[in-house]
């Protein structure tokens, strides 16, 4: 093999970043007939794609992304069909809760905005909400209700994709950090960290799918687009008796609760911990642990006696306008970028599919999100 480096390293497309979006892009490109390699500096789906809360909800999706999320929701629910193995995607209804007058207003406003983009969300009375989810706090004043909701076990994502990618013939290269990309008329040369002892890969096309690290990847190509890093805290309980049967969130979006079939309850919502792009997630902020646990135990009082089994962190990417970055890398022919979607796990498989459709020269099912709009756009609060 070492004597035949050309044929073993020339690809129609090399995808850098093995999260949901990169995996889905690589899979759909391969299924579209391309010779594809997928490279990650670590194992597949061990960053945000494998450690997120697995919420498949429309209640927390940005309104304009609802049509994408609904298509992706279907993909997750059907994962066995297109991935071969699933991620325990489970269809349950979702409720978003309001405990104050201000939150009632917020629930109405947000339900309306998402309805306009096709989310079947209605606002229901506390009595109706308690029929659906008897365990909610008696102080509930109103709730948003949506039948299209549910959850997956995000930690299974890497295993499911690895299986599908292997069958599709994608060359999966894990634990191999890319050092840079040399782009020219002949395509791209993807260079690896010297420690890997791996020759560069030649590719006609390169796809950057590195989540919060997209900023660094774009810099390889001389393109500057800032990507904000959110350090989300997650908390999971030990296995407990059944305490809920929906996905719960609150009006402002800063709580997600679900109970898996194994009895564990996952508490998320994007409360911020310590960490950054360079070091990853470092540790939870004590006051944000307290806040998140209080909100969870308030929303669902039966949770308060549950014991915490584990706390961890995941990095979520956000662009200056908090919309995804999916399309051509500005000024670099044959280079593409896909990522940074809010609730990116929910929408991820679909975002990868439309990225692949675009690269394959097909009409994407939904419009992409042109990266060029972000050139020079200041990051709010920066």
């Amino acid at each position: 093999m070492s004597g035949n480096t050309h044929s073993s390293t020339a690809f129609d497309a090399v995808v850098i970043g093995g999260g949901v979006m990169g995996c889905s892009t690589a899979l759909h490109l391969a299924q579209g007939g391309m010779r594809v390699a997928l490279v990650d500096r670590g194992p597949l789906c061990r960053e945000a794609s494998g450690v997120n809360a697995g919420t498949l909800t429309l209640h927390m999706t940005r309104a304009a992304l609802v049509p994408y999320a609904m298509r992706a929701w279907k993909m997750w629910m059907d994962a066995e069909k297109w991935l071969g193995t699933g991620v325990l995607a489970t269809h349950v209804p979702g409720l978003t809760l309001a405990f104050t007058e201000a939150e009632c207003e917020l629930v109405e406003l947000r339900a309306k905005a998402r309805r306009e983009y096709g989310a079947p969300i209605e606002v229901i009375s506390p009595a109706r909400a308690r029929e659906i989810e008897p365990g909610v706090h008696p102080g509930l004043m109103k709730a948003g209700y949506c039948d299209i909701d549910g959850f997956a076990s995000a930690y299974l994502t890497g295993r499911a994709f690895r299986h599908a990618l292997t069958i599709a013939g994608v060359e999966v290269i894990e634990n191999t950090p890319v050092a840079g990309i040399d782009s020219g008329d002949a395509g791209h040369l993807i260079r690896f960290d010297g420690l890997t002892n791996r020759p560069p890969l030649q590719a006609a096309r390169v796809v950057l799918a590195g989540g919060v690290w997209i900023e660094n990847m774009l810099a390889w190509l001389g393109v500057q687009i800032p990507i904000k890093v959110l350090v989300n805290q997650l908390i999971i309980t030990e296995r407990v008796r059944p305490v809920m049967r929906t996905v719960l969130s609150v009006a402002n979006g800063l709580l997600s609760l679900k109970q898996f079939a194994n009895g564990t309850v996952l508490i998320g919502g994007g409360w911020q911990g310590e960490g950054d792009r360079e070091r990853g997630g470092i540790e939870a902020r004590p006051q944000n642990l307290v806040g998140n646990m209080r909100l969870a135990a308030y929303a669902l009082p039966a949770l308060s006696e549950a014991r915490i089994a584990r706390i961890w962190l995941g990095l979520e990417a956000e662009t200056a306008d908090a919309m995804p970055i999916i399309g051509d890398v500005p000024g670099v022919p044959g280079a593409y970028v896909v990522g940074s979607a809010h609730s990116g796990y929910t929408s991820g498989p679909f975002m990868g599919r439309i990225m692949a459709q675009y690269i394959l020269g097909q009409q994407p099912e939904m419009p992409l999100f042109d990266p060029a709009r972000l050139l020079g756009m200041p990051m709010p609060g920066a």
Partner: protein
Amino acid sequence: MAEAPPCPIDLLVIGAGPAGARAALRAQAYGLDVLLVDENPDAGGQVWRPLPPGFARAAGIQPSSEAVQGDALRAKLRGSGIRCLFDHKVWNVGSSLRTDLIGPEGVTSWQPRALLVATGTTERVVPFIGWTLPGVVGLAAATILLKSQNMLPGRRTVVAGSGPLLLAVASGILKAGGEVAAVLDLATRSDWLQTLPSLAGRPDLLWQGVQWQARLRKAGVPLLYRHGIASVDAVGGGFRVHAQPVDRTGAHVARTAPSIFEADAVAVGHGLVPGTDITRLLRARHRYEATRGGWIADADAQGRTSVAGLYVAGDGAGIAGAAAAGAHGELAAVACAHDLGRLTAEAHARERDYLLKQWYKPARFGRAMAGLMALREGAVASIAPDTVVCRCEDVTRAEIDAAARDGALDMNQLKAWTRCGMGPCQGRTCGDVAGALLAAHVGSREAVGCFTGRAPLRPVSLAEVAGDYTYADIPIPKAAPL
């Protein structure tokens, strides 16, 4: 817990066994403000474990030398005025070394300038069919029953595994009036003889070993070298223990028929694994050293880790035995005193050199014993496919092998793909053996690494962390973008 700022302290010592307790005493002597924390009701750790609160030794029962040493240590601690929080668990440690405790009064937080982790070890059991049955206990658990509670694990016990605890437990059972069906030792007589030079400086321990052996012989207990447990079946009210001959690596020798022993209890242990939960949580550098128990924090002779202000001592820093742990704890205390400006470089060097001499002989013996207890590759290779390895999450060997074949490359990926290590013990029980199983596919223990450390170190309830509050007390951040 959010309201009160953490309480400042010079040195917080986690674990009041020989290492932690002696470190606390020594550090206090240098004028450091010390807090000593342990989840047990009193100091002593595993080896010098006290009687339960309210219990007294019956008249006429001679206390063991370990009980005498433990009582002396506890008396010394009480007289020292060192602040001790027993019955307190450490559930989280932040990168500032902020340490969160959960005790009878709820959750409290401390902010030490230096943190010494002296949390000892967890017993390793190389799983076999039946190891999770009630009545199958660890050798260390059996010593707790015998030493602290004066209880037998059963009327008739099979004692199996490796290391010095085998003879200690078997002999302890006989002394307490119980019956030992058999002792199954993975090692050979010559493995034991090879540790003799290390005993040169410890005639007391050599004599103790001889006495243990003599007691077993006198009671006619079969002592089977190079034997392990193939399986334990629950039959009627008891167990049928299948003893299997093994080779030098601990692998079952298939051609030989197993010997069967009837018993109503099994005490089994395959060595000790250093407790690295806290050093892993703090992302200290670690290295794999099989003969010292497995993964240990990379530290200098005085327990300074790669994280500033974080120290390790005792068996948790790499197994060298209880007798060496005290001096190791003092070495770490001397390092803390120096690093916190309470000891000149000259005095530090003098104290360190003196303590290193004290530490050397018991450590040499302890490390020889640790070598006997080291994980044997063949024993891991012989685990039957349908044996549960992770007992919190019921993950079998076959599931671990399947994940490895599907491409799991490291321990965290294995955890995600199989739930191995995701339960309340955080992988303390299964992590070492699961690591060996994965490493057999991937190449090395270094390549597969270990589970990332995660809080909580001990389970803690939402109510305990959340405290008393109303909805208005929840600091709800601004809404996510719509």
